[in-house]
Each structure stands twice: as structure tokens, then as C-alpha cells.
């Protein structure tokens, strides 16, 4: 494997950090603030995209390391998995920025400077996590994501927002400090290194220390509350007090995907699939994931608040990725990685739609959505496409990921998980299809009301969600690039 020394990953991290600093310096001037955000987003995406060709050839891009003290090194390394995560997050940041501008202006939100600055900081941390070359760097950026998103969750500063913020911190910081840090300590003590390595860091000593490594693995999983595996999922619904762009980019893409990304990293690059299957750690995790998939879907059914329903749907969908990783077969991991992206595009569309409905129509409840599809046809069409992708119907991206995860379950000799995927698809259908039906065909009123989807501000809301819905569709027909990257990542 060739290694290329470059500062590009660092630039990708710094681009949004610089944007965040500039945003906070240009407080009070909206146009300037947004200009910095767009500039940061564009530069960041360009830097990340420029690394694609090299990664596609199987090379790894490496920055020089900064050693804090012996054994602790800050360093970035770009591989296919990290590139997918960072690329996805930075691309969606551009769209979310467009959407946010429309959203906060439409609603006249206060403290927009802090809002945009924290957004940029979060993206910086997400890129840092994606490119982390070792567990230490990953841990730092993982925590930074939590801290940077907390002001966004508590943005409204109401009692409810603050208490949501507190739950958010307690869950994310609490689990990562107590469990993940302990897991890192055990790993460092056992392996003498924290570097992510394809095939794992434990080498030959692995199989002999079942109890120790079992504890470390369990602590890693418990410490990654961002992946929202039950019983560490409650923070995600609580975080829905945040403004919708935050829920969209962070709680459908950056934050939660940081969780599953780290689980994939731990499976692939800390323990290695071979060691995990030898020790038999995959199956228990797979069952936990399966339980989360089904239980969260049932909970989603009972939510009337649209954002909460989407949040529980996210909990459920994230566990698909965990399930794919836990099955430890080549196809399932490929499917898991693909699902990371597929779910991101679909779920962000759904949140964008929910936000657009709120911003333009002030509706937050599922029961109020009767007939909304006739007034907001563009939004609800996009919503429908992505809801179908969640269910896993072709010709949409969700079908491909579920196909591979299912294939992986068979490969792993655990066809029972096919039933879980099937049951979950039914449940997804049960909580999404009524919304779609009600939106287009429900409600008695037929009077032609003027569509709220008009005017420049509304367009800022609608165009991003149409784009992401288009990508969800497009990923089914042209999955080549993403699948190739997933293939590279799954190979290690």
C-alpha cells in the first residue's frame, strides 16, 4: 500500500475551522457571515474531493504527526472509509448552508452568528474524526463534535432546549468519557499502540485475551452513544429541540454518522474482522442492533411529532449500519458503508422537508399534514422518494444497502437477520406510508390555495431538498463510485 505524505487532510479540517472563526468575527453582518460559510464549505469539499483519485488507487494520504507525549500523537490518515464520511458530510454542508440561510431568515432566529460558527466547527471536527489516524485523535474529535453541537441543541435557550442540551451532553460525554476512554486505555495497554491499522492492532496476542478484549469491545460499543444503539439512544429524540437544519445535518448525518463511523473503524481497524469472528463478538452486537432496529421502528410508529418520528427512524436506520458491521462478512460491511451514505442523503431530505413544512406552514405534527402534499408538491415528492428509500424499495439507494446487508447475513451464515430486515421494512412502511397518503390524498379541502413554495426564501429551502432526493434516486442507478469506495474500505 502506498502512503503519500500530504497536508491536505489538515487543510480539510482547518477550512471549516477558519470559516467558523471568520463567521464569529463577522458577527452581525449576515451577508458576510454566509459568504464565509459558503467559502469554507466549498473549499473544504474541493480539498476532500481532490483526495479522491489517490484514494481510489488504494493509496493512503498521511499527514506528519504531532506527538503530544510518548504514545499520544495527533495525526491524520485518509482512507476510503474516512473519505466517504468526510465527503458526504462536507457536500451536505454546502446544501445545508443554503437551506439554513433560508430557514433562519424565514423564522428570524436569533444568535445566528453562534449558530453558523458552531456549525462550521462541528464540520471541522467531523472531518478530523473521519481522517483520524489513531484512536487518540479520533477521541479528541469525537468529543469536539459533542461540544460543538451542544450550543446548537440548546440554541433556543428555553428551558426545554437547555434540558435537551443537558441530556445530550450527559449521554454523549458521559458514555464516551466513562466507557470509550476506558476502552482506549485497555487497548493501549494491551496493544501498545493506538494507530488504526487494517486488520486490527492486537495481532497475535488477540485470541488469548478473550475477557480483556471482550470488555474493551463492549466498552467501545457502549462508549459510542452517537450511534444511538439502545439503550443509549434517548439523546437523539431529546436533541430534536434544535432548529431543523441542525437536526438535518447533525442528527441525521454528521453526529450520528460519526458514531457508526467509529464503530466501523473499531471493527475494521482496531479489532479486525478476523479477530472479532474468531472471538465470536459479532453476533451479540448484531442482536443488539437487530433489537434496536425493530424497537426504534415501533417507537417511531407512536410519534405524532414529525421530527420525533424521524429521530426514531434514524435510531433504527443507524443500527442497520451497526448490524452490517457486526455481521463481519465482506458484503455486509460493504452494505453498511453504503448505507451510511444512502441513509444520510435520504434522511437529510426528510428533515429538510419537515423543516420546510414548519418554516412555511408552521406545522410540526403528523396529524396536521393532511393535504399538505397538494400545497407543497415539490417538498412532499422529495419526502416520498426518500421515505421509500428508507423502506428499501427499488429504484432507490436504500434498496442497495439493504441488499448487501442481507447478502452479508447469508454469507455470515445468519439468515435469520433477513427476517429482521424484512420486518423492519414493514414497520418503516407503516410509519411512512400514512404520512405520504395523508399528504397527497388526505384531508377534505380541495380549494386551490396558493402554494407557499414560492419566493426566493422558500426556494432556498426547497432546492436543497430536491437535490438530495435526486441523489437518493441517482445512487441507485449510478452506485459505482460509492460501491467501489465501500469495497476498498471493506477490504481494509
Amino acid at each position: 500500500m502506498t502512503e503519500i505524505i500530504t497536508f491536505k487532510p489538515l487543510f480539510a479540517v482547518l477550512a471549516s475551522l477558519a470559516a467558523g472563526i471568520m463567521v464569529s468575527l463577522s458577527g452581525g453582518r449576515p451577508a458576510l457571515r454566509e459568504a464565509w460559510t459558503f467559502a469554507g464549505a466549498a473549499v473544504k469539499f474541493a480539498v476532500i474531493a481532490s483526495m479522491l483519485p489517490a484514494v481510489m488507487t488504494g493509496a493512503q494520504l498521511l499527514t506528519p504527526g504531532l506527538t503530544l507525549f510518548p504514545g499520544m500523537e495527533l495525526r491524520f490518515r485518509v482512507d476510503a472509509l474516512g473519505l466517504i464520511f468526510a465527503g458526504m458530510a462536507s457536500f451536505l454542508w454546502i446544501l445545508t448552508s443554503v437551506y439554513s440561510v433560508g430557514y433562519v431568515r424565514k423564522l428570524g432566529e436569533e444568535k445566528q452568528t453562534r449558530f453558523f460558527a458552531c456549525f462550521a466547527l462541528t464540520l471541522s471536527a467531523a472531518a478530523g474524526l473521519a481522517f483520524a489516524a489513531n484512536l487518540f485523535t479520533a477521541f479528541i474529535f469525537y468529543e469536539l463534535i459533542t461540544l460543538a453541537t451542544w450550543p446548537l441543541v440548546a440554541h433556543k435557550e428555553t428551558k426545554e432546549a437547555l434540558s435537551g442540551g443537558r441530556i445530550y451532553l450527559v449521554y454523549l460525554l458521559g458514555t464516551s468519557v466513562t466507557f470509550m476512554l476506558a476502552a482506549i486505555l485497555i487497548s493501549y495497554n494491551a496493544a501498545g499502540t493506538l494507530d488504526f491499522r487494517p486488520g486490527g492492532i492486537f495481532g497475535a496476542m488477540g485470541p488469548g485475551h478473550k475477557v480483556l478484549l471482550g470488555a474493551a469491545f463492549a466498552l467501545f460499543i457502549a462508549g459510542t452513544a452517537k450511534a444511538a444503539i439502545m439503550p443509549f439512544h434517548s439523546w437523539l429524540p431529546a436533541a430534536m429541540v434544535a432548529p431543523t437544519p441542525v437536526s438535518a445535518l447533525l442528527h441525521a448525518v454528521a453526529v450520528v454518522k460519526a458514531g457508526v463511523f467509529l464503530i466501523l473503524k473499531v471493527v475494521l481497524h482496531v479489532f479486525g474482522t478476523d479477530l472479532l469472528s474468531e472471538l465470536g463478538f459479532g453476533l451479540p452486537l448484531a442482536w443488539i442492533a437487530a433489537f434496536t432496529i425493530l424497537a426504534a421502528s415501533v417507537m417511531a410508529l407512536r410519534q405524532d411529532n414529525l421530527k420525533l418520528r424521524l429521530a426514531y427512524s434514524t435510531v433504527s436506520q443507524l443500527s442497520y449500519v451497526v448490524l452490517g458491521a457486526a455481521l463481519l462478512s465482506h458484503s455486509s460491511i460493504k452494505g453498511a458503508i453504503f448505507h451510511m451514505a444512502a441513509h444520510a442523503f435520504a434522511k437529510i431530505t426528510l428533515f429538510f422537508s419537515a423543516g420546510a413544512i414548519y418554516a412555511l406552514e408552521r406545522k410540526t405534527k403528523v396529524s396536521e399534514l393532511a393535504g399538505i402534499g397538494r400545497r407543497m408538491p415539490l417538498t412532499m415528492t422529495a419526502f416520498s422518494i426518500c421515505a421509500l428509500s428508507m423502506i428499501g424499495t427499488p429504484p432507490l439507494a436504500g434498496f442497495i444497502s439493504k441488499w448487501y446487508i442481507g447478502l452479508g447475513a447469508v454469507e455470515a451464515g445468519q439468515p435469520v437477520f433477513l427476517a429482521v430486515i424484512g420486518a423492519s421494512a414493514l414497520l418503516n412502511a407503516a410509519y411512512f406510508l400514512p404520512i405520504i397518503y395523508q399528504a397527497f390524498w388526505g384531508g377534505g379541502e380541495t380549494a386551490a390555495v396558493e402554494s407557499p413554495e414560492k419566493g426566493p426564501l422558500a426556494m432556498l429551502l426547497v432546492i436543497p431538498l430536491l437535490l438530495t432526493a435526486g441523489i437518493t434516486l441517482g445512487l441507485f442507478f449510478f452506485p459505482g463510485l460509492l460501491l467501489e469506495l465501500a469495497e476498498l474500505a471493506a477490504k481494509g
Partner: protein
Amino acid sequence: MTEHFPALLVILPLLAAVLIPFSPAAVKRSAWHISFASAAASLALAARLAWETFALGKVSYWFGGWAPPWGIEYSIDPLGALLLLLTAFVTCAALSYSRAAAPAELAAERLPYFYSCMLLFTSGLTGIIITGDIFNLYVFIEIASLAGYALIAAGRRREALVASYNYLILGTIAATFILLGIGYLYMAAGTLNMADLRERLPQVYHTKTVLTGFAFLVVGLSIKTALFPLHIWLPDAYTHAPSPVSALLAATGTKVGIYAMIRVIFTVFKPEFNPSTVPMTVILAGLACAGIIYGALMALAQTNIKRLLAYSSVSQIGYIILGAAISNQTAMTGSLLHIINHALMKASLFMCAGIILMSTGAEKTGDLKGLGRRMPLTMAAFTAAACSLAGLPLTAGFISKWHLALGAVEAGLWLVVPVILAGSLLTAVYFWKIIEPAYFSPAGERRPVRPEAPAGMLAPAVLLAALGVALGLAAHFPALGAGRAAALLLGKP
């Protein structure tokens, strides 16, 4: 001249301390200048000595030219050098902070005596660090303690007097225990020089005399360091002392106590001394763990900011003792690093609390609403120091707690690891109680008299907090120094 630096380091502040109260009124008016000059000179001396110590490995000074074990020896090893530097530095910071803070909390005619006591306190601490004679250690402990009682009594509320009195009673019991312990060791080994004791004691390790002496010394020093459950004097004392005193005491007083404890356990005794009848490691580690959790929970329950910080000290002292109790290379390094980190951070936090008290009159955690916007620098320093104390990655606190936890893992003490991590989390939670209203609440009724405190108060607070973050980023240097000191303590080459 340079060879007399060790003696000068103790004598200089001592002389200045004696000079100030006995000088005419005109000189008294510039008491602060004299004190600061003396502290600054001490810092320079300490820096020079630390440099020399790290170059040579050990600096030894024979008082009056008498060779040990007959004469009194001053000896400085890397650990002592680190502590000397730390004490001198924090004293400088606390004094420069006092210039604006002390007149706000004390009557003008008392100020010269106040500065004199501060110098006396540092002189005592420096002596504790520097001396190689165990009876000398006792004398310096008492010099520092007496100055400390007087400083606490200078608090603006009358409760400060009671806090000081209670501390005095407990402190004197502790000192008498220490004296008694020294007597037993002298009985058994016939010498008072620490290095000599180290050589002679192993032949009598099995006797009850040595065990008794050891027990008295450890219990006495535990009171001085406020190790749980002997911490009861600390919360009151830190709450009611003037804020520069709280900063100085929290940063250096307890730390030097811990240093004396480490000296007794690892220099006077060898790590091999592990009495089978009394499982020292288990007891100390157990108490330290209990202290970590108890201090954090009590801090969580407090509404007075200074009292919260005081209980936080109880918790953090637990961390330091824990590392010494685990006593492998990694944990010891963590312990020494935490001595440095906690000193810098807690000094900064107490200074910030003092600034807030002076500018807004706010003493309770609930009074800080919206202060993040009104006093941005103070709250930024407070937040940075709090983050470091909680052990957030990229701060100094993370480095020390990482070493401590890793040391516990290496020693196979699995039960200790969750305590370390949970304590860290609780630290974050109780500081959160202060930081959240400061940044995420609309402004309360308490308006600062002026937007920010005078630069003289603000600068040391900010500098110390910044240092805490900087030491986390450039952790290589302190980790190396602490690692070397730890290796020497544990008797490794």
C-alpha cells in the same frame, strides 16, 4: 554565590517577611513592591536551580559547610525542582493578583502584615521542598502552617476566624503527629537526614517502632494534605479566606503537603517497605478513590462558588494521592503532572471567583447568569481552567488523568479505572453548573460595576488558565520532566 542559591531561596522571602512589619510606615507603604520583588527573585533563583538540577541530576547544599548526616542538608532532585518552580511561579501570580484584590478584601493598615504572611508561607513551603532533613521538614511545615492560619483569618467575614481556628487545631494535631513519627524514626535509626534514614531504616523495617513512626507521619501529613476523610478543615478555610489566599493555598499549600508525603513514602522509606500488617497501598488508594467521588459529589451539591472549588480540591487531591498509591512509573508520572496541573488550574479558578466576587458581588452559582457576555475574559479563563481540570482532551488535565488511568490499568487495578473516569465526568458536571448559566442564560440582576476586572487581577488568572491549555498541547516537556522525577522516586535509574 550560585552555590548558596538553595539557602537563599528560603532566606530571601523569610528576610523580606520579617523586614516588612518592623520597618517604618514609609517602607510599609511599598510592602507589595518588596514582596513582589522578593517573589520574583525567588522565581529567578528557582528557575536557575531547576535548570541546574535537571542538568546535574541532584543539587545538594550543606548548611554551614557541615557534611550530612551531621549537618543539615538541603537537597534538590528533579521532583523538588519542579515543585520549587511551581511554588515560586504561583506565588508570583498570586502576589500580582493581590495588588488589586487584597485592598478590596482587607483593611489598608493590615496589608503589610498580609504580604508578610504570604512571604512567610512561601518561605515555609520552599523549605519543605528543599530540605533533606526530616526534623527540618517539621519546622518548615509549621512555619508554612502558621502563616497559613493567619492568612485564612484575614478573610472579610467573621466566619474566617472560626475556619482558621479549626484549621489551627487540626493542623497542630497533625504537626504533633508528624513530630511524634519523626521521634520514632529517630529512635529506630538514630539519624534525621532523609538520605541517611533511607540507608539505615531497611535493617529495622520489621520493627514496630518503624511501623508506628511511619503511621504517625502518614496520618499527620494526610491531615495537612486534606486527604479524605481528614479534609474537614479545607472547605471552610478555602471558602472564607481572601481570594488570593485561597488561590495560593489551593495551588501550593496542599500540593507541598502531598510532596512531603511522597518524600516520606518514597525517599525516607524505600518502595520495598510494604508492611504486611498494614496494606498501605490499598488503604491510601481506597481513601483516594473515596475522596475523588466524595469531593465531586459534595462539589455538585454546593451553591457557593468558592466552596464548590474547595470540594473540587478534595476530589483532585484524591487523584494525586491515588497516583502515588498505585506507585508504578506511569501512575506516579500522572500524579506529579496532576500536582502541577491542579495547582495552576485551581489558582486560576479561585482568582476568577475572586474577580467575579469583586466585580459583581456574586458568590452563588446561580448569580452568574449571562456573565459570559459581560466578563468574557474572566469567564473564558474560568472555562478553560475548568475544562482542564475535568480532563478534556488537549488540555493538561487530560494528560495527567490519562497517565493515572493507564497506570491503574497497568497495575491491574480494574476497580480504580471507573473511579478515575467517573470522577472526571463529575468534575465536568459540577463545573457545568457554573458555565451553563454564564453562557446560556439571559443576564441576571447582578450587573458588574465595570465590564472587566483590573488587568492586574485578570492577567494572572488568564495566564494560569492559558498555561493549563498550553501544557496540554505541549505535553512532551512536563511529561518528560515528571517521568524522570517519578523514575527517581521509584528508585529506577
